């Protein structure tokens, strides 16, 4: 086959996906970059403002809420290590061969299957002032908290909810797969050498699953930047008490679709993208080196 023919055949197969990809991914990314240097309210034509949007976000009148959004998102990410370590722990327990393992695995996975608006509505009800969580706390003699209305409690509440939703989910399955690849002989050898449980974990398990931990960590951070929109909309009715659930995702939605500042929102999205990119590259550069394959 000639080179041209090969190219044509290849493009023929690619084209349905490629066209969609260009129209809904490639062009929007470029357009978004261009938009971020303009002001655009959907009615009047876009006007170039140079770095105006970025200035507004970083030092101007939008900066207070933008930094708040960044802080809120960072706060939410505090739940990531807890959830990852929880998944690893559960996977290690499940990895021992015993009866009922499949049952427990399925039960732990339930919240992940159900995740979505329906379950967020359930959590709004659980976290309600007169909801289940406060009632249970009262039964064990603790004073309840107004989870949904106190600025300092709503984000921890969302972290609790997210941990519940993710800890037995995809990450645990990934760890289970990784653990099943660790040869039992390693542990036997370590035992002969007199290694205890703790030592076996640090010397064998942790290094052996480090590629998985790394992968999960990178993905969680990428996702973490965009997290919280649905929780904010369903549980906190938007920005939440004192703006504590104005996550970056909600901030962008609010600017773009509630006050129609498309340029500003695009600039915020790009700043978020740059942060994701920087963090991911740093992860690859420094985390990737310590991972043992």
């Amino acid at each position: 086959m000639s080179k041209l023919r090969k190219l044509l055949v290849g493009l023929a197969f690619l084209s349905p996906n490629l066209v969609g990809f260009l129209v809904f991914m490639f062009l929007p990314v470029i357009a978004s970059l261009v938009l971020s240097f303009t002001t655009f309210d959907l009615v009047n034509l876009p006007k170039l403002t140079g770095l105006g949007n970025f200035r507004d976000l970083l030092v101007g009148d939008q900066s207070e809420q933008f930094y708040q959004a960044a802080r809120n998102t960072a706060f939410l990410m505090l739940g990531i290590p807890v959830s990852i370590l929880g998944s690893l722990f559960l996977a290690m327990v499940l990895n021992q061969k015993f009866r009922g393992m499949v049952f427990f695995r399925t039960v732990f996975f339930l919240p992940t299957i159900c995740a979505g608006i329906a379950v967020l509505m359930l959590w709004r009800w659980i976290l309600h002032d007169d909801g289940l969580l406060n009632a249970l706390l009262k039964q064990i003699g603790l004073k309840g908290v107004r989870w949904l209305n106190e600025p300092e409690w709503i984000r921890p509440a969302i972290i609790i909810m997210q941990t519940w939703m993710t800890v037995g989910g995809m990450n645990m399955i990934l760890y289970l797969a990784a653990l099943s690849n660790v040869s039992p002989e390693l542990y036997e050898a370590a035992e002969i050498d007199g290694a205890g449980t703790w030592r076996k974990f640090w010397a064998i398990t942790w290094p052996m699953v480090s590629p998985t931990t790394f992968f999960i960590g990178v993905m969680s951070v990428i996702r973490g930047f965009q997290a919280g929109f649905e929780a904010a909309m369903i549980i906190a009715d938007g920005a939440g008490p004192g703006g504590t659930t104005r996550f970056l995702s909600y901030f962008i939605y609010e600017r773009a679709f509630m006050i129609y500042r498309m340029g500003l929102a695009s600039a915020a999205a790009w700043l978020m993208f740059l942060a994701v990119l920087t963090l991911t590259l740093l992860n690859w550069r420094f985390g990737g080196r310590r991972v043992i394959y």
Partner: protein
Amino acid sequence: MPRQAGKGLKFYQRRSVRRRIAMVVTYAGLSIVGITMVLPLVWMLSTALKNDASIYSIPPEWVPSDTKHYVTLDGEEEEVRLLRRRVKAELADPADKESLRDSVRTDEAGLLDLYEAQLRGGGEDLSAAGIADAPVRVKVVEAYSVVKLHPGDPEKEKVLEVPSDEVTRRRVIAPQWSNFARAVKSINIGRAYINSIFITLVITAGQVLTSSLAAYAFARLEFPGRDKLFLGYLATMMIPGAVVLIPTYIVIRYLPDILNKVFSPEAQVFSRELFLFGKYAVGKVVGIDSYFSVIVPAMFTAYGTFMLRQFFMGIPKDLEDAARIDGCSAMGIYRHVIIPLSKPALATLAVFTFMGSWRAFMWPLIVLSSEDLYPIPVMLRSFQDAYTVEYNLLMAGALIALVPTVIVFMLAQRYFRAGIRLGAIKG
């Protein structure tokens, strides 16, 4: 000391015993975690089956129950509806009569006829109930209840007065299955279901088709620029959705105008509203408030292409070569070799796409404003906005929304787990 000997060791130091203890601890720990995972979902079902009065009961009630009242008539216990509890009372000091308000009734015998609830504080102070001007003390002579026998049956219905101690009250298990019907009636869940199924099926079919074609090209066809292009695909997986969200929205918004200008300047076909069978609104042709705008941007993902490519790479090349020698074209190989061998991977992608688009929320929320087109998650949100305290109805609606995901998961569990691992082959 050799551990397996067992001799000279204390009971709990023996290996078999320690093993048992470890097992018990493991099961106990797993059960606690398991209960934590399930409890909220049980609470969801329990709330969905409660009657309006016991949603907020304290302490929380796990079994949906109802308080029922019974009286014994002619030796037979009959269920009744309690209308009110009253007491007959006399004044401790007849001189207090002056302080009573006119609204207080007295019967033939001169006893005061009061609601039980008005006797707060042991009847010390009727002024607190707003029926006396000064503190008035009363003595209860008789407590009685007004009940309705055979409520709801207009022919046998009867109102009775019975002494209160003859009315027994019992908490009985009473799941309100009708809540599901009420939820369906409160919002147009049926329509949302149809919308969700339609949107999800088209997106899933589209993704599997376009991704598998592209994945085949990336995995097996050789053409210049292939690997660079693939890297471009991979790189986009890192771009936050928020970046493409706004321009895509702008395109969707102005698409009807552009298309009209180019193709249909007279009839303005592209901004028309469509109706199925002449009466069911199915949104606009394109643009805001159209199925098109929810479906099409969601149909192309780098993720699906990436996942299928990884799988296609693992299919032995010999099979393909054999087919090529038999005169198969690239399309023939794709259809007769690759696709039949990749059913598990295709199913996996289909399941993931289904789950993802079934719960998609932000994009439909942005591009749809007409309730007729709402998929379930967006519909649930307007349900929540409209019914702020009726958590039993909200939970019933939410449960109805969960059914398809749970079914799909149960049918396709193995694909699901396979897919999670497939996605992790490479970061």
